């Protein structure tokens, strides 16, 4: 047989040696048999038709890094950050390749070796990942500042008189992407313990998230309302931390571990003990995928390993939980006054459908609402380009994907796009503002809550 000879003809690769990938179990890397079935589901391959931009190509590069044939080069690093991390490849992969694991270790290597470091990149990452997203109070302070900017007329003035042009380039490009900030945080809207009218069917912990808390705190309130309507007692710890998915996906593995520990502690403080909860719930697809992974993340932490296993066993996405609990059917119709059903389409968050394989439950819940017609979205599970901070780091690819998504949404002619992840909502709302159309972007919990609340009116 033709044996691997990868030494002589290859050009050199200036870079640093791997730390994380090198120690990854051979089985994880060898799981990929490079059959190529992932290729048609990868947004970056679909756009470029270049093997390096495909899951199979990236895995091959990671394998070569792990085996020392390729250093952690700037090109490798850029490639790994060009990946959306949408995990469509994991859904497509019959061999069950754990792409998430490899990809997080690869980004860990990249940050540890610092091959991409520039002054501004390090500064921004330091500020966001180590500064803001590890400090809930600071995040809220910034949120408050943005809210004042958006509501005081300052934003209007900046745009009207073109003052935004005076801002630094980075900030100027980001400004239109900024989500609308809510006046209240989740802690203002939700009490630490809320109990249903009748005897509780279940006692659940509620995770409020960070982006969700800042921009969609009402979705958290709606989620609690839905849970109360379904007879659940809801425990919501105060001043919650980021779940750490941003850190985990961006090579800051140690910070991700720290965030996980803090969340476990906070939930135990509010709930008494994890034993006292039937489930720990999240309404953010991107967070859920990572929250379920705490067991793996903390497996070598002697103080937390066992609790993390318990935690991961209890974390459920809200849609998944409601269906398994047996959802109380809402009775108030959301149809328009003339009787025309409310036409809703459903966009799938990548980490809900690919990361957690939850596809049927959100649709089933939406179909339960009286007066709603669910229209299937073409390419519903194709990434919208939000992908964590991807819309900031890779604006070009991100906007291509957003345009594709907006085109598909327009085909449905639906007036509401339901989706279960705040990152997607920010992106889709930007898309609707850009296109000047009045499609509403809503979380399925918001729609359900409207129907439940109607019953009580």
């Amino acid at each position, binding site marked *: *047989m033709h044996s691997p*000879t990868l030494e002589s*003809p290859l*050009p050199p690769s200036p870079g640093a040696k791997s730390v994380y990938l090198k120690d990854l179990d051979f089985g994880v890397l060898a*799981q990929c*048999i490079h*059959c*190529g*079935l992932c290729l048609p589901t990868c947004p970056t391959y679909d756009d470029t038709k270049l093997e390096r931009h495909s899951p199979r190509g990236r895995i091959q590069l990671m394998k070569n890094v792990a085996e020392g044939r390729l250093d952690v080069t700037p090109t490798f690093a850029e490639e790994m950050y060009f990946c959306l991390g949408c995990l469509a490849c994991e859904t497509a992969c*019959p061999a069950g390749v754990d792409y998430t694991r490899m990809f997080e270790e690869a980004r860990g290597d990249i940050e540890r070796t610092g091959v991409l470091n520039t002054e501004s990149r390090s500064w921004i990452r330091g500020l966001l990942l180590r500064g803001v997203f590890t400090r809930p109070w600071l995040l809220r302070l910034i949120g408050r500042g943005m809210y004042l900017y958006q509501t005081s007329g300052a934003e209007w003035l900046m745009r009207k008189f073109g003052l935004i042009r005076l801002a630094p380039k980075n900030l100027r490009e980001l400004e239109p992407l900024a989500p609308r900030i809510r006046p209240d945080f989740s802690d203002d809207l939700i009490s630490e313990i809320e109990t249903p009218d009748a005897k509780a069917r279940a006692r659940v912990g509620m995770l409020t998230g960070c982006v969700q808390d800042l921009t969609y705190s009402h979705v958290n309130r709606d989620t609690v309302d839905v849970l109360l309507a379904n007879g659940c007692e809801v425990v919501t710890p105060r001043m919650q931390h980021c779940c750490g998915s941003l850190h985990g996906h961006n090579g800051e593995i140690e910070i991700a571990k720290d965030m996980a520990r803090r969340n476990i502690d906070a939930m135990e403080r509010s709930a008494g003990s994890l034993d006292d909860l039937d489930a720990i719930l999240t309404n953010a697809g991107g967070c859920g995928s990572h929250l379920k992974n705490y067991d793996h993340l903390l497996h070598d932490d002697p103080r937390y390993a066992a609790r993390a296993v318990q935690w991961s066993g209890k974390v459920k996405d809200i849609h998944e939980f409601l269906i398994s609990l047996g959802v109380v059917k809402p009775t108030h119709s959301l149809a328009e006054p003339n009787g025309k059903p409310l036409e809703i389409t459903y966009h799938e968050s990548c980490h809900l459908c690919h990361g957690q394989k939850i596809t049927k439950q959100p649709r089933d819940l939406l179909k339960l609402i009286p007066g709603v017609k669910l229209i299937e979205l073409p390419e519903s599970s194709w990434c919208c380009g939000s992908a964590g901070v991807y819309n900031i780091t890779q604006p070009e690819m991100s906007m291509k994907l957003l345009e594709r998504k907006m085109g598909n949404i327009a085909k449905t002619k639906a007036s509401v796009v339901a989706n279960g992840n705040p990152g997607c909502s920010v992106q889709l709302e930007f898309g609707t503002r850009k296109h000047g159309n009045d499609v509403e972007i809503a979380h399925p919990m918001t729609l359900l809550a409207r129907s439940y609340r109607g019953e009580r009116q």
Partner: protein
Amino acid sequence: MPNLVQDISAFIAPERVLHSREDLLAYGYDGTAALHGVAAAVVMARTTAEVQALVKYCAEHGIAVVGRGSGTGLSGGSVPSNGCVVLCLTQMDKVLELDEKNLTILVECGVITAKVAEIADGAGLLYPPDPGSMRISTIGGNVAENSGGLRGLKYGITRDYVMGMEVVLADGSLVWLGNKCVKDVAGYSMKDIFIGSEGTLGIITKILLKLVPRPQAKKTMLATYSRMDAAADTVSAIIAAKIIPCTLEFLDKITLNCVEDYAKIGLPRDAEAILLMEADGHPAAVEDQAAKMVEIAKQCGATDVQIARDADEATRLASARRTAFSALARVSPTTILEDATVPRSELAKMIRFVQEVGVRHRLKIGTFGHMGDGNLHPTFLTDEKNLDEMARVEIAMKEIFDFAISLGGTITGEHGVGLAKKPFLPAAIGEASLGLMKKLKAALDPKGILNPGKIFD
């Protein structure tokens, strides 16, 4: 040695002449296990003229050219030889003409097989060859490898649908072979020489394909067996009863469990084997055939025969079957797929022999395949790091090939020879036939630049 990259960049846009270490590693493999090579450059051609210019340049300088589509081949046909130029054709992906009067479609070589099938379907037609990788494989790759698929039994293979092609010859000159005529005996059937030539005789750039009317009805059935050879007996009995269904696909216990782990469609996990059977055509004929097939399956010892409720379920079954090879990779680090094919009357003997070989050499073998074509895929589930086991795999593989040949069969039904089957070719076809192939190669590619070292040395 000329400065290859610089020279080629003079006639092909430099951004499509890839030569970084990362890119070369990402084009170092196809879908075959344990085969790698390193090219000197990878060229993404967009037009026939570019292909001609590149081949001409390589011919002048004696540089090897390895054609490549999506790289899903299963015999190493598109694995680069060291120092070659990989000519990647995925960006030549235009559909040029659908001729509904003559039932033909003209496409560039990089068009994805599934796209041809979709376009045909949209016009009420059928493009029957449906290899497992059809969602990503290119039609050019299919023609170069003469791919089969799940419908070979009734509809034949890729060869049966190629009416014409444009080929760039080894000196860079261009030739068009064939036409839209159903009958054409003007000289040698030259296009047939290039079908299945694995890129060793010319680079196929355009293909004229035959389409057939889409059958009005189809019925899909799933038969369950407690003995593998009973499934083989069923196939032989159906053929002997003069019924030609469109599909008779076999999966053994290991394979069906791997597929079920991935696809979760409710396959009977306890069965020793299952047979996926499909009849298509005129509704009355389909009913009649299906009823007879159910009866024969039961007579041959099927413990259960289920009929797919609707088209969706039928599609799910066929799609799941297509993942069999990749799904088998779940079991062990290395998955080596074989392609032994025997006359259909000898199937039960062949199946029993594969089982016996597995036991005798203490190897885990998952077997599936297109049983209606006598085409089996015994797949070794092994570990390339276990040298002792790999030695036994080599012996077992040879025994299986020798036995297939002794039954009047062949070493490869649809994957091609490439690198993986090269050592077994002389015994399979004999010296006279091999000598004729070599003469043909020498006549068409006197400098030996086209995919050297594939099929034979």
